[in-house]
Every structure is written in structure tokens, then in C-alpha cells.
């Protein structure tokens, strides 16, 4: 698992070729590697952008304005939840509780949490990322 985590950390997702290669190096079947990868939400096996945005959708975030945040992100990035921008910069996903219920709503961009979001705040954050 640390191997797959390392690859995702660097490239944001796992391609079929990469999983086959890992299997060969470890001398196990490719199905076993895919089986492990597909079990974990953060080990993506589909194309993901450079910045993966995960919006917490569990109850507290959902009560405290998650939909506004999603709507803002969708408008800014011109994609829907589950999609990746054409330039492969951003992916927008929903995720289960990320442990920031007291500062809801919260999102993760790659591994960084952003909390107590408002429409203005999230707009600023994404603008910053767009300039990176």
C-alpha cells in the first residue's frame, strides 16, 4: 500500500500500466494490486487532475452549506462533481466525513484541509490554486 500511496501522492492517480508494473515488481498478480487500489477512496484508478478537491458531504457539512460550496466550485471550474477539468488541473469530488465538523463546511485539496468555508472564501482559495 505505501507504494501505491507514494505513486498517487506524486501523480494523483494510478494508471493500468502502473498497477501492472507494481504487480510485476512485487511478484504478485495485477488483480491483487487493482483489488487493493480499488478498495480505497484515495487510491484513484481513474484520471485525476493535479489538484483533487474533495468536498465533505457528511451531515454537519451538509447542514452548514455544503451545497453552496459545491455550486461555487462547479461554476468556477465549469465541471460537475466527479469530473476533471479539460486541462487536467482540477478534479471535483465528494467525500465522507474528513473530521472538521466543528469548522464546517470543509474541503480537502490534495491533502490540505480548508475549513469554515464561505462562497467568498472558497472562491479566493480556488483563484490562488488557478494561478499556481
Amino acid at each position, binding site marked *: 500500500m505505501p507504494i501505491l500511496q507514494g505513486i498517487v501522492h506524486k501523480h494523483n492517480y494510478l494508471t493500468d500500466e502502473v498497477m501492472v508494473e507494481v504487480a510485476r515488481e512485487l511478484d504478485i498478480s495485477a488483480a491483487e494490486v487493482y483489488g*487493493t487500489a480499488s478498495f480505497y477512496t484515495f487510491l484513484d484508478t481513474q484520471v485525476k487532475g493535479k489538484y483533487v478537491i474533495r468536498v465533505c458531504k457528511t451531515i454537519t457539512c451538509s447542514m452548514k452549506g455544503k451545497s453552496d460550496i459545491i455550486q461555487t466550485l462547479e461554476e468556477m471550474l465549469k465541471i460537475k462533481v466527479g469530473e476533471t477539468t479539460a486541462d487536467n488541473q482540477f478534479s471535483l469530488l465528494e467525500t465522507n*466525513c474528513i473530521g472538521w465538523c466543528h469548522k464546517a463546511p470543509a474541503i480537502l485539496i490534495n491533502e490540505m484541509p480548508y475549513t469554515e468555508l464561505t462562497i467568498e472564501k472558497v472562491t479566493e482559495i480556488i483563484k490562488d490554486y488557478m494561478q499556481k
Partner: protein
Amino acid sequence: MENTGLNKVDLIFEKINNSEVLTKAFSMTREKIIQEMLDSGLKGRGGAGFPTGLKWKYTAAEKSDEKYVVCNADEGEPGTFKDREILERVSNKVHGGMAIAGKAIGAKKGIVYLRGEYRYLLPKLMTELDSFHKMIKEIGYDFNIEYCMGSGAYICGEESALFESIEGKRGEPRNKPPYPTASGVFHKPTSINNVETLVTAMMIMKHGSKDFTQYGTSDSRGSKVFSVSGDTPTPGIFELELGMTVQQFVNEFGDGDTKAVQVGGASGFCVPRKKFMETIIGFEGVPTGGSMKLFNSSRSMYNVLHNYLEFFTEESCGQCTPCRVGCQQLLLGVEMVKKSEVKSTYLNELIKLADTMKIAAKCGLGQSVGNAFKSIVGNFREEIIY
């Protein structure tokens, strides 16, 4: 001594001299450490509440060339965020608690399983772990800790699924027995403890079990850290003495319009206003791993239940049928009742299904889906139907 109300305590985040406490603990015999833990009455702080002293005693009794202490930092229960705060503020006490557990059970190795969502903490934790290793070497004790990362799977908080994940596999729970104390990570005897439990163990070593038993009630000794969120003017982390009623809790944290409190997260119980007075927060009433969510009268309990069921449907590992299909059917069922596609008495069938899951599901996830389902449907039936 019985708890008389809501008392704030400062034990978990209390500043201590780590090396002093550890030196004291290492000078004790294994038996003495375990006896202290048994006397303290400490129960696991992850939610399940297994007596920590017993867990250490059983693991200590196993004969094996290798044993492990595993720290469960895969805090995934909706509404819980105390372990993150503890690791951010007092990780040295977590590491210290692991070393004490190591001494008690005869393990030289510790593994912290940290949830993927908290990866951003890792650089700081690594620095603190380095100084911990140096400090423990100076005391002349041999104990080594490693960090292992999760990758966004709630089920990996279940102990045997967590072991599978550490071993690099799909995080699917194992059959029990054998229990972790006999066959845990890498199939070696393992004591797996929650982050907060380990810190509490450290504090018991400092203050002694006698001091600790002055807090709480006979069933729920000591204090614990609560994660408070939802409709409250003061969300956040609070360490409180165990044994208060939900009413006392709501008086402190409510917004004046609290209609229900979800105690213990999605896998916990929903307590409605009419039962606030009689319900005790602790193992004699509603147990909790720390998650306390308040809902005021503007919230639809249907939405709350629907959100929880969606959560379980996604996070069920899919290995056993009662949980995999059960979660999906409960979700589908409440949607059909809401849309009046079936009669409201269909809810009774769904309750039977939840009961079946409690008996037939393989692990704690499937077994506890019924807690939230039955307590929400039972107390807010009209909100689910209309």
C-alpha cells in the same frame, strides 16, 4: 462518587514532563502497570469501550517472539475529530502511551495507523517522533514506532480491517476469534488502542489510578474528550467528566432549540428531547467515541437519517451480505416510504432488517447501522414518513 453534573477537566491536553512519567512507568513491573490500568477502570476511548487493562493483560499473557502495539488513529466516525486535535497538540503523549503499552505487553514495536485525511499532519508528527525516539533512548528503553497511512476507508477503523490494511491488503474485517490479543497485525499478538486511550493511560501512570477513579461513575470512569458539532454556538473539542445526562450537556452546548442529539456518530444513538433528562452519556446509557451532534428544530431528521444511510452504503466493505445489501435496502426503503411508494408500515419491515443486520453482520459497522436507524425512526417516525 457519583457525577453530579457537567464538569470540564484538563487531563488529555495537560502539559507534562514526558520523560519523567515514562521513567516512572518503566521502573514498574509489567504486572504493576497492568494492575494500575485495571484499577483505573479505563475503557477504550474509540467507542467500543473494552477495558484497556484487560486488553493489555490478555496480550501480555500470549507467548510470542514478536508483539505489537497499534495506535488506531483512523478516526472516521462522522462528527469525531478529537484524535486529530490530540495528535496535533500532544503527540508526544500518544507515543509515550504506546511505549507504556509496549512495556506492559512485552512489545518492542509500535505502529500508528493514521487516516489518509490527516496526512497533512505527517511532517510535524515525524519531527516529534524523532525527538521521542531520542528521548526514550536516553532513558535507556528500546521501543520503536512507525507510521502507516490509511487511504480513505471508514471500515479500516475496525481493528481487524486495520491490520489487513497495515499488511497492504484490502481493508476487509477478519473473522473473530481469534481476537487481536492473540493474533493481530502480521498475525502476532497485538494490543490495539485508540489515540485518546493511550494518552489517558499515560496520565494514569502520572497521577495514579486512584486519582482517575475519582472522576466519572462506576461504569464510566474518568473523563473523555468530546467532539461537539452541529447546531451549537460553541462547536469544538471539550474534555468532560463522564456520567452527565444529555440534558446537562445540552444546557451547556445547545442553542436553546435542540430537538435531538446524536451521540456516538452515525453508528451511535439519537436521543430526542423528551429523553434528555433520563439519558446518561457513558457506558451505562449511550456510549460515545466522542461524537456529539446537536440538531435544532429546523433540521429534518429524515435528511439526517438519509445522510447516515448513504454514508454506510458507501463505506460498507461489501464483504458480508447482511451489511452490503442491508445498507442499500434501508436507504432505498426510507426513500420509498418518504415518496409514499409503500405504506408507512413498511418501516416495521425495515426495523426487522436492521435487527437482522445486528445479528448477522460480520463486524461492528454492519452491526451498528441499526443503532442510528432504530433510534431515529423510533423517535421521529412522523418526520420519516411525511
